[in-house]
């Protein structure tokens, strides 16, 4: 015989209303099958049966409100009616076998205290070898990340969440206290801003004063926006940015593109754009000038043997720079395929984390939004980034005659700590030379 009890649904909840029996006395019920419903303050909850068997007795009728851990029914395990007289030891084994639901309490064993702690949630197996001082209770990924990034020993943080669990607010609170500990002014200075970025008003006990129509609205930044902001400022602070701009005649590329456009669409199902041509030219130039494919680490230059090109992709409310690995091993077709694939998966947010890492040089194509010229910010720890302006038919002077050519402005932002203007312009001249004299077949 298993007792079915009113489960504990939360720290603040001491009773619940039994609103509906989903089984009638005498009916069979499977373990974990919904047995009854309870209602607590605007929340309806289906309660699964703690055991399989026959619903032998219903002690609480629909509509009654009872305290948690009150026995509401009994289930007779299948097998025999003799089970009713089975030794108590047998029945006592049942609760342990039903972990998902709050375990039933043996009502025979004295009166249950009014506040019996709900059984601890089944602990997920510890995923990583935990340091000795790992606090009890599950930690959310956000809390782990926060602790890691700020080098916090979580065993020193007091948890205020359910079951002493550490919440984000606890960590933030701990961080806010930490630095002032040394100075330890007895009273916090009124000028000090509140430690945690809490925007929410505290629960108001009473109706509030009438409001005024707002002239502004306050919106928290998305995680992506915060990361972009941090990265941009970090880059500006790190590198000595200089931008050089070259005008490139894309007519040869435009012709090649025109010739292959339909075949690309038919054979591969995607467009042929200017970007893979430019990427290909950049790869050729990077081979010749490896300093542009390097990083600066203190007083050392790190030359990258791989050429991994980051391609900036605009998203609804941000941007991401997925990486074409081994870009020097791909022809125009391979590069176009990689660009289409990475951009599509970036926009549907299906990039794997390592697909945005390991870039050695980046390209940003603001020309697709109509920009002629831009001065991009270097994607750290790289040392240069190429900005691609829009390709327009433009009258230009060739051999003292005016001709109509497809013209594009390419801008290179480079880190002047490592690269001087002469080298940057040699690099750009190489890119220009490859594009203007394009002969390579694309597929």
């Amino acid at each position, binding site marked *: 015989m298993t007792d079915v009890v009113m489960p504990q*649904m*939360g*720290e*603040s*909840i001491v009773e619940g*209303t039994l*609103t509906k029996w989903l089984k009638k006395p005498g009916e069979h019920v499977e373990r*974990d099958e919904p047995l009854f*419903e309870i*209602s*607590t*303050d*605007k*929340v*309806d*909850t*289906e309660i699964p049966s703690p055991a399989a068997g026959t619903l032998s007795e219903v002690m609480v009728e629909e509509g009654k409100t009872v305290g948690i851990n009150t026995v509401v029914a009994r289930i007779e395990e299948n097998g025999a009616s003799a089970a009713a007289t089975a030794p108590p030891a047998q029945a006592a084994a049942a609760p342990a076998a039903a972990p*998902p639901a709050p375990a039933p309490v043996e009502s025979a064993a004295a009166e249950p205290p009014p506040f019996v702690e*709900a059984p601890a*949630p089944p602990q997920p197996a510890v995923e990583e070898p935990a340091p000795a001082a790992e606090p009890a209770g599950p930690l959310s*990924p*956000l*809390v782990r990340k926060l602790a890691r990034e700020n080098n916090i020993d979580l065993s020193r943080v007091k948890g205020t*969440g*359910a079951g002493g*669990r550490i*919440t*984000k607010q606890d960590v933030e609170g701990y961080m806010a206290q930490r630095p002032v500990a040394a100075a330890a002014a007895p009273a916090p200075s009124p000028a000090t801003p509140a430690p945690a970025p809490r*925007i*929410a*008003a505290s*629960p*108001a*006990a*009473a*109706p*509030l*004063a*009438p*409001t*005024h*129509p*707002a*002239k*502004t*609205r306050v*919106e*928290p930044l*998305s*995680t992506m926006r915060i990361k972009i902001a941090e990265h941009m400022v970090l880059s500006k602070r790190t590198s000595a940015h200089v931008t050089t701009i070259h005008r490139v005649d894309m007519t040869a590329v435009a012709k090649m593109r025109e010739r292959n456009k339909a075949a690309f669409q038919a054979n591969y199902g*995607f467009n042929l*754009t200017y*970007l893979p041509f430019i990427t290909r030219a950049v790869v050729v130039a990077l081979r010749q000038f490896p300093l542009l494919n390097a990083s600066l680490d203190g007083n050392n230059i790190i030359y990258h043997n791989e050429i991994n090109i980051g391609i900036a*992709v605009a998203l*609804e409310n941000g941007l991401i720079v997925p990486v074409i690995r081994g870009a020097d091993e791909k022809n125009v077709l391979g590069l176009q395929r990689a660009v289409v694939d990475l*951009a599509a998966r970036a*926009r549907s947010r299906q990039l794997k984390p390592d697909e945005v890492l390991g870039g050695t040089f980046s390209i940003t*194509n603001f020309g*697709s*939004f109509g920009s002629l010229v831009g001065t991009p910010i270097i994607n750290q720890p790289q040392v240069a980034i190429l900005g691609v302006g829009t390709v327009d038919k433009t009258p230009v002077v060739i051999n003292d005659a005016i001709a109509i050519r497809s013209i594009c402005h390419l801008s290179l932002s480079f880190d002047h700590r490592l690269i001087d203007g002469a080298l940057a312009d040699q690099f750009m001249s190489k890119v220009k030379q490859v594009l203007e004299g394009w002969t390579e077949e694309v597929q």
Partner: protein
Amino acid sequence: MDYASALELQRRLVTQRQQGAIDDQLLLVEHPHVVTLGRNGHRENLLASDEILERAGVAFHPTDRGGDITYHGPGQLVGYPILDLRQWKRDVGAYVRAIEETLIATLAGFGIAAGRIPKLTGVWVDGRKIAAIGVHISRWVTSHGFALNVSTDLSYFQYIVPCGLTKPVTSMAALGVRATLEEVGYVLAAHFGRVFDFELPLVAPALAGARKREPI
């Protein structure tokens, strides 16, 4: 999205969430005119007859959430979080308070000082209800959720006694805030992420509407 479709979608997601096949979800939708009655609701709180409702173009739908009767319709931001509370806190009371906190913070972002009234779940401004909450839980997975009046035509509430309470209702528009459901949805999703400790990859895509971009 009509109410029945949203209900069906939620049922599917709840099952998948219970099986661990998907992560936690937040659905943000707008319904056509509909009056819904919670499992423990009282039909007498529906003030209008079936004919009057029909003439006003308002559907009626009994449902399995907590709470009494309520109205959904155009201009109302309806949120259906499908969360496994075992991954958060096993506490339905804390869950409802966290939904309230999300709504209060969202409204604060638009300059509206909203708050709680003890024992009256929901979010209130100056004694008027601006957002209603009603939740269903099955194996610790939540469904149903909340409804925030952004620019709701409040006259439709005359057909019911909202949640069985004879308290007035209000909306963001009635308080002088002009905002679209999309704007409010973005703000709300961001606060929801903060309150429930999510790193939000999903920012209300249903409302955002994918804009077509030039191929690169």
